[in-house]
């Protein structure tokens, strides 16, 4: 990977974040930063708190302690709507598509923040409402084209195989034209070809749109290939942070991964 990318300005910084459910500590004093245009991976054994970290970043969970700095703004915590409005999009570990809708509609929902027509305008379907519908449809079609899912455009997502659903979910996130893209195990449960495709897409997104990406991934090969810097979590604590090679070398990481299958 081009090492230069990790020297960009800091886009997101989390500082000393702690999160717990009832008594259970999910994250303890986590701090790291994400620089513009880089691909940042979060790895760690199951239950290390990776997903919780993402959920904190885009405001699904509210940490008891610590601050989040996004685009220079320091905050106690995020809230989902604000996060979305400020350009954070994400995908989920177990697919969170809208099962009752077509691929096209799913991706269109990704653009809801770009549409401002009131429901009355939409009911009459003239002027702004109509214009927005068509403009955003075009945007969505570009995403569809980008992710090569033209052939399933009008299929209900429920009918799609797992790999494609993952791709559609990515499409929905991309449709929002995010600045920061959070991917929660984008390649989990995929076969080799699907993984390769997904890797290609992640890299293309990063290159084509200059999107900063934070991803959780189990497949070490993938992580080492595509990420600029890697954070290693274990039992809610950060045990490693650096370039793939640095991390690969670190004893703490090796210990954490001893016996862990992937």
């Amino acid at each position, binding site marked *: 990977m081009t090492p230069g990318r990790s020297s960009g300005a800091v886009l997101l910084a989390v500082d000393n974040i702690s999160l717990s459910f009832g008594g259970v500590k999910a994250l303890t004093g986590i701090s790291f930063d994400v620089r513009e245009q880089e691909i940042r991976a979060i790895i760690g054994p199951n239950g290390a708190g990776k997903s919780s970290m993402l959920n904190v970043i885009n405001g699904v969970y509210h940490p008891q302690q610590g601050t989040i700095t996004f685009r220079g703004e320091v905050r106690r915590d995020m809230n989902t*709507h604000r996060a979305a409005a400020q350009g954070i999009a994400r995908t989920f570990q177990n697919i969170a598509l809208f099962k009752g*809708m077509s691929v096209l*509609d799913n991706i269109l929902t990704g653009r*809801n923040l770009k549409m401002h027509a009131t429901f009355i305008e939409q009911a009459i379907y003239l002027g702004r*409402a109509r214009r927005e519908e068509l403009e955003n449809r075009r945007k969505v079609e570009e995403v569809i084209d980008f992710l090569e899912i033209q052939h399933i455009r009008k299929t209900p997502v429920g009918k799609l195989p797992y790999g494609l659903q993952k791709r559609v979910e990515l499409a929905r996130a991309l449709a929002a034209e995010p600045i920061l893209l959070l991917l929660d195990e984008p390649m989990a449960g995929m076969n080799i070809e699907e993984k390769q495709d997904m890797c290609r897409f992640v890299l293309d997104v990063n290159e084509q749109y200059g999107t900063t990406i934070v991803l959780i991934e189990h497949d070490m090969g993938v992580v080492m290939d595509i990420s600029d810097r890697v954070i290693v979590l274990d039992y809610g604590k950060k045990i490693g942070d650096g370039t793939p090679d640095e991390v690969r070398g670190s004893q703490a990481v090796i210990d954490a991964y001893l016996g862990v299958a992937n």
Partner: protein
Amino acid sequence: MFYREAGQFKTSYQADVAIFPIRQDRIAIALIALTAFVVIPLLATPYLFTGILIPFLILSLAAIGLNILTGYAGQLSLGTAAFMAVGAFASYNFMLRVPEMPILLAFIGGGTIAALVGILFGLPSLRIRGFYLAVATLAAQFFILWFLTKVGWVTNYSSSGVITAQPIVILGYTFATPAAKYLLVLSIVGLMALAAKNMARGNVGRSWMAVRDMDVAAEVIGIRLMHAKLLAFAVSSFYCGVAGALFAYVYLGTVEPEAFNLDLSFRILFMVIIGGMGTILGSFLGSAFVTLLPVLLSMTVRYLDSNLNLHIAESAISNLEFMVFGGLIIFFLIVEPHGLARLWQIAKEKLRLWPFPH
């Protein structure tokens, strides 16, 4: 089989997102409109108008309302009739107390009041989901009806609690004949159905469905749950309110709050389930089904009765109706949860692919 789609390609998104993208469908819908607006008024009997067509249309509108809330936004409501009642009595009071009030405006006003009440009772939906919410809407059903009976002011202190709807006069023309009333209802329902369809296929509709299918994901992509849910309650209640007003003014004429009891709420819920949740078309199909079934049922029973003289009591017929509806609901939920609309859709697909099965 009748479809000839080869060569019907889209050169603009406008054409691609049209409600009826296929030419054959456009032709069909045109024919239906023609029959509804021209043929039927010429042929139908007064009974057909007042006994079947008008209630069918009005209840379709209510069903659309409930469908928006339950089918699209996924918030189950058992209080539909109550919101209809609000619409009816609000319109009545607008007509009663505002001098020179145009009746259409009164209907809209009624709908608006219903919408406000809807928002009020929708508030719990922000904290609770599923049948907890259903119970909350029951509260609306009971409270509102109680309110309408107890507070004399709304019924203009009529001793019996029964109100008599004012005559429908628009631009000096009085809608007295069944045919005239039918056409009025048809136009209103038609327009509102179109509006509903537009919302459903637009950003609003997608937000609703997103909230229905996976609220967390919806939130993460920037949809405001509160806004979406309350809007669903408001729009839904508005539709029910207008339906209620029409129910009172065009169908019943003289109304008491009891006309909008829990049973009516259930009937409309049945229309949505049988017709198909999350489709506008389904609301009409369901309404037609629920309106016609009793008629057919009693006709057949009477027929059997007279021919095989089984001496079936009137009450038996209504109970039979109960059982059939109950059975059908279960049947549909088990066999085709998406209702008649889906069945229609499947049939249509078959026709499009004819002679191939898939």
